[in-house]
């Protein structure tokens, strides 16, 4: 790995943490962003051969010095308190305090005084350091327009003094779904590439910060279920139904089950609890053969009622394939309209076609799935599938 690749990787993991670190100390958002960029630029030049023992702490220190520098030059009055606090050598550099600071950054972006349509791009930029250029396609907006709107939002945060604080309980509830969604997005982004420990830490902090909100517990349970199986699919892609449960992490599964039970006691089901319940059902089924796919398909129906995403509907099709056979699954598939190519769709189509003994269609969908695979192990799985279809 080259020095710049290493810095890139640390940038992905640490950008939001370093920024949150400065904001938590009362520094201005726009200046803090400049200081964080400067710290990463310094890392790129200075970390030639060896990384510092704790790269994040290094970045925090450099960014902190930098932001104080910027304030000294730009402000007529240096805020003495923040200088004294920043220079305090006894200040702990305990990484466990990061999730809470980053959580506050997530909540800052969901403030009702910020236009709803810019909140998600703002989260991606402030927490993950993603540029307006890289996001413009995702939000169907020209990069320049998106960039301007992001700057406007950040200026508003600065000028109107919107503080990175956790909101009061009532508003916390209203803003929680966006934050849960963002943490889930962060987990999905890191899942295939790096250890998604940050998303796990954030989900855990959110359970504590929300004092055991059922959906926060649902999300953490869901992530624990996903994590418990990650070791199995690290090197080769194996569909869930074909995985050997002995390779799963039992401790994580146990914690996830406990969380899910605690969440269910609130009797306030939601999207993440249902997704975790589906994971739980899959896990139980792998060990005991129970519950049946009929029950899993019912859980999917409940999930689709609250979150009718394509991905959830495809999960429903896959469960229906096992519960009620390929004809029923095919009937559901025909109702799904795609706006753009989607690997899980091709994957489910291929499996349904195989069960219908329509080898031609199965091959076609398997090839589409292979073409859409973003990593080599998934592509390898589909290449093998195509081989099997051609030479049964």
């Amino acid at each position, binding site marked *: 790995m080259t020095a710049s690749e290493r810095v890139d990787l640390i940038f992905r993991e640490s950008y939001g943490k370093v920024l949150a670190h400065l904001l938590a100390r009362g520094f201005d958002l726009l200046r803090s962003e400049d200081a964080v960029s400067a710290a990463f630029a310094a890392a790129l030049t200075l970390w030639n051969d060896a990384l510092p023992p704790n790269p994040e702490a290094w970045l925090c220190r450099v960014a902190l010095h930098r932001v104080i520098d910027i304030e000294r030059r730009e402000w007529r009055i240096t805020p003495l308190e923040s200088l004294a606090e920043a220079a305090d050598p006894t200040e702990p550099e305990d990484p466990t305090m990061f999730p809470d600071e980053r959580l506050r950054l997530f909540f800052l972006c969901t403030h009702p*005084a910020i236009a709803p349509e810019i909140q998600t791009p703002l989260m991606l930029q402030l927490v993950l350091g993603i540029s307006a250029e890289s996001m413009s396609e995702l939000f169907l907006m020209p990069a320049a327009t998106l960039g301007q709107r992001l700057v406007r939002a950040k200026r508003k945060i600065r000028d*109107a*003094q919107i503080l990175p*604080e956790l*909101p009061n309980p009532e508003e916390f509830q209203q803003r929680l779904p966006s934050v849960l969604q963002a943490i889930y997005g962060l987990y999905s982004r890191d899942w295939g590439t790096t250890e998604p420990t940050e998303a796990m830490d954030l989900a855990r902090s959110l359970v504590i910060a929300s004092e055991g909100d059922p959906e926060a517990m649902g999300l953490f349970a869901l992530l624990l279920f996903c994590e418990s199986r990650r070791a199995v699919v690290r090197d080769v892609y194996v569909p869930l139904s074909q995985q050997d449960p002995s390779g799963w992490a039992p401790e994580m599964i146990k914690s996830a089950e406990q969380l899910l039970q605690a969440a269910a006691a609130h009797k306030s089901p939601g999207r993440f609890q249902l997704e975790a319940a589906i994971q739980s059902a899959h896990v139980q089924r792998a060990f005991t053969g129970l519950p049946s796919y009929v029950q899993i398909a019912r859980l999917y129906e409940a999930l689709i009622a609250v979150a009718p995403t394509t991905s959830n509907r495809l999960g429903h099709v896959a469960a229906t394939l096992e519960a009620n056979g390929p004809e029923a699954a095919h009937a559901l598939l025909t109702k799904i309209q795609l706006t753009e190519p989607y690997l899980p769709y091709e994957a489910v189509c291929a499996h349904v076609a195989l069960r219908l003994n329509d080898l031609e269609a199965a091959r076609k969908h398997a090839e589409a799935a292979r073409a859409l695979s973003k990593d080599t192990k998934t592509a390898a799985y589909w290449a093998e599938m195509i081989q099997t279809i051609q030479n049964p």
Partner: protein
Amino acid sequence: MKYGLIFYETSAQFSERESESAGQYWGAWSAYIDQLDDAGVLVRGAGAGLQVPGSATTLRATAGELTIQDGPVADTKEQLAGLVVINVPSLDEAMTWAKLAPCTEGGAVEVRPILPDPS
């Protein structure tokens, strides 16, 4: 940090000033201002209540050519009714006070940060 709480009222709210419920209307406003003052957030002498929009005169100049219009700047559903300045640590606290204004229900309150002192 100082914020302007800028109050907007509908014509129905403005007309309450001259109605049978005028006592209630003014009572609500003075109770609100007292509340801000008692909490120590009101910047005294920095705000004002305004007469009805119909009493306004608007002036505009284009290339030295002055036009004078009878009435307020814009003919909108809610009209400027007054403002106060408060001093609180964050937008969230400013919004908490704004919610309590008598005109929020039906009318509107705009929360706008005040420019810092140039000194």
